[in-house]
């Protein structure tokens, strides 16, 4: 299934864009989705432990299973304010 993925902050620069669409088998988790990007773009891999994910604009654990139509985002530590 096709999944829409958003990157922000430093991750956006490393991933080479703010938004990407990726084909991933149904039943995959958010962790597996990140690993897919990290294998394509090794510079992302070291950030795995300092990133949180969101699914449909709610913070989501790495074990979350993707559903068709999900909007996933990978968020570096936030620094608003």
């Amino acid at each position, binding site marked *: 299934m096709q999944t829409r993925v958003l990157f922000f902050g430093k991750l956006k620069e490393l991933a080479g864009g703010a938004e990407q669409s990726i084909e991933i088998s149904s039943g995959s988790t958010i962790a597996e989705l990140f690993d897919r990007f990290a294998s394509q773009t090794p510079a992302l891999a070291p950030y795995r432990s300092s990133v949180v994910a969101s699914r449909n604009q709610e913070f989501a654990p790495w074990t979350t299973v993707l559903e068709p139509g999900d909007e996933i985002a990978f968020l570096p530590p936030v620094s608003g*304010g």
Partner: protein
Amino acid sequence: MALSAHDDLILLVRDPIAADALVKHVRQADDGAVVTFDGCVRNQSHGRKTLYLEYEAYESMAFEKMREIAASLHTLFAIDSVAIAHRLGRLEIGETSVFIAVSAPHRKAAFEACRHAIDTLKKTVPIWKKEFFEDGAVWADGELPPVPAATPLAKRAS
């Protein structure tokens, strides 16, 4: 711009924040206090001279998280209403990046709620700041938002 059930005001803006309008919005006849927080762009970071900042957000999620903060203040503190505005894009030294106004019948709740609002915003709202210096730019160190533990439902789906 959005008004909630409590007449709260939540804004993500690219133009300068109209702080006076936010104060006016929350200040009603039955309030005895309005406490505000004005977060502004500092001229240095860890001893390096800052030229300007750029803020970006996951806008739809940031807006929702700011709305959640305002809603939580009503359950935690005896307040009247809340206005929270965060600015995005390029900000110059001295400009306001975030402004929070909280009104309450009594000052204690207003102080505590305003403090809670900015502390929570800095931990949970997906906004990022890039600092531009004379010799380069860096994304500011931030806080990793807390993520809820995996739910039984999520596990069952696998």
